[in-house]
């Protein structure tokens, strides 16, 4: 078990200096995410331009994995179409949960999250932001839970 595999420099950097942190006002949609196990709370706001997420922000409190994952996600999905976001979500989910899944080339910086799969209890930390984003996209205003 190598800690450096979990806490890679990209993760530590995005935890310390989260990108796209804050809230959009006005926003076209938003959602709250909550991980009761560790108390992580995230809020995602986004603006839509037709089928594209033209802009988005997140804020909230959480562990390094959940904050960095949200920051990386926001960077990765900004400007993307819904179908592209779904594709990315599926790839990230696979990388987080399948022990020997190959890391796709098009993941970019999101590939830094692949170390999380060696730490099964932390997978929920990394996936909270994605579930929250999905909820915002589905225009659901019910709080999302990973438990």
């Amino acid at each position: 078990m190598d800690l450096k595999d979990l806490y890679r420099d990209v993760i530590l950097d995005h935890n310390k200096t989260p990108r796209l942190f804050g809230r959009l006002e006005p926003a076209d949609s938003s959602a709250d995410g909550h991980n009761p196990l560790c108390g992580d709370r995230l809020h995602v706001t986004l603006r839509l331009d037709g089928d594209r997420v033209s802009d988005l922000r997140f804020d909230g409190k959480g562990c390094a994995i959940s904050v960095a994952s949200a920051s990386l996600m926001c960077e990765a999905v900004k400007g993307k179409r819904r179908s592209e976001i779904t594709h990315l979500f599926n790839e990230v989910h696979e990388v987080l949960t399948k022990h020997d899944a190959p890391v796709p080339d098009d993941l970019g910086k999101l590939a830094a999250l692949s170390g999380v799969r060696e730490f099964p209890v932390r997978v929920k930390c990394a996936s909270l932001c994605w579930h929250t984003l999905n909820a915002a996209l589905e225009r659901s205003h019910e709080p999302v839970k990973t438990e």
Partner: protein
Amino acid sequence: MNADPAYTGYDAQRVWHDFPILARQIHGRPLAFLDSAASSQRPASVIAAVDDYEKLHHANVHRGVHLLSQEATQMFKHARERVREFVNAASTREVIFTRGTTESINLVAQSYARPRLQRGDEILLTGLEHHANIVPWQLVAGQTGAVVKAVPIDRRGVVDLADFAAHLNERTRIVACAHVSNALGTVLPVREIIRLAHARGAVVLIDGAQAVPHQRVDLQALDCDFYAFSAHKMYGPTGIGALIGRESLLEAMPPWQGGGDMILTVSFEQTTFNVLPFKFEAGTPNISGAVGMAAAIDYIDSLGLDRIHAHEQRLLKLATRKLEAVPGLTIIGTAPDKAAVISFTLDGIHPHDLGTILDSEGVAVRTGHHCAMPVMEFFGVPATARASFACYSRESDIDALVAALARAREVFG
């Protein structure tokens, strides 16, 4: 050296050797187990007692004339007597085996409180309760129209007695509070709480889960109405615990669950319930669990609770001093009277990250809200890391913790 005579000669390393699991390597490192407040480990004697029961004596209790059933019944009966002695309950009729503290509290909420509570009656808790001593009362409040109130804690994690007294009124029917806070370690002045509550006519339940492994508890001296605890926090098995109740109250309460063992006669027209404590023990009980619980009490007695207490208090002082010297570390819960539990946060590192890093160093601590979300809310933190000590904890475990915290700082830069 410690001047406390009760502590003289306590050999923590020898005690450590009584617990087989503590010799495990975790991620290639020696285990420093500092999570006993969540569940303590079991000594070889408890494991052997359960094993012996399973291999040589098991049959159902109170049911057969054959030898095995007689032996199992005798062992189960003996276990009840050991539990009675352990907390000095007045009689084994007052000792009800349950699945643990949570079930004990639910039993009182449903069987004592539910038939008695009227709309507007008050159930008084404190701000540092475990969810197990909040949710059962909310459920019964919802069923009866009663109201749940809580006496707040101060910044040290202390419940002020004058404030507690001020929260009692003519509508207070039940007071339910922890003996020792699981999240902060605060020892509550339960003797005074019980006296004040009784003076206003309220019945008191004490959640003793975090108290019984660490200090002597005398229920007759406390004059307590209901006292709940679990075996797995006092070196015994999971899935077994006890509710100790005042006999006159238990007698007046209806059964909580129906089934075998809790009846004398059954016809389709009418059932006569069994006497105490069996009235509250429907179905085949956790016999091996009770045997293990009794063995855990034997083990505690072999060390001496006063000596365990002195040992843990010494470690608490030492660990507090060493942790206070860690840059950026804040101890949450600084009551003058504490059990050996230290909740803390470290600047810039979320407790969940801390838990993972400490684990990679072989150090097991609890991280999270400790099933006490109102306590976390009060201190304005989503979670803390918590180191808790037991009879087998050693100074070297504290050193391992401090070294692992330095490693966390290193990882996070």
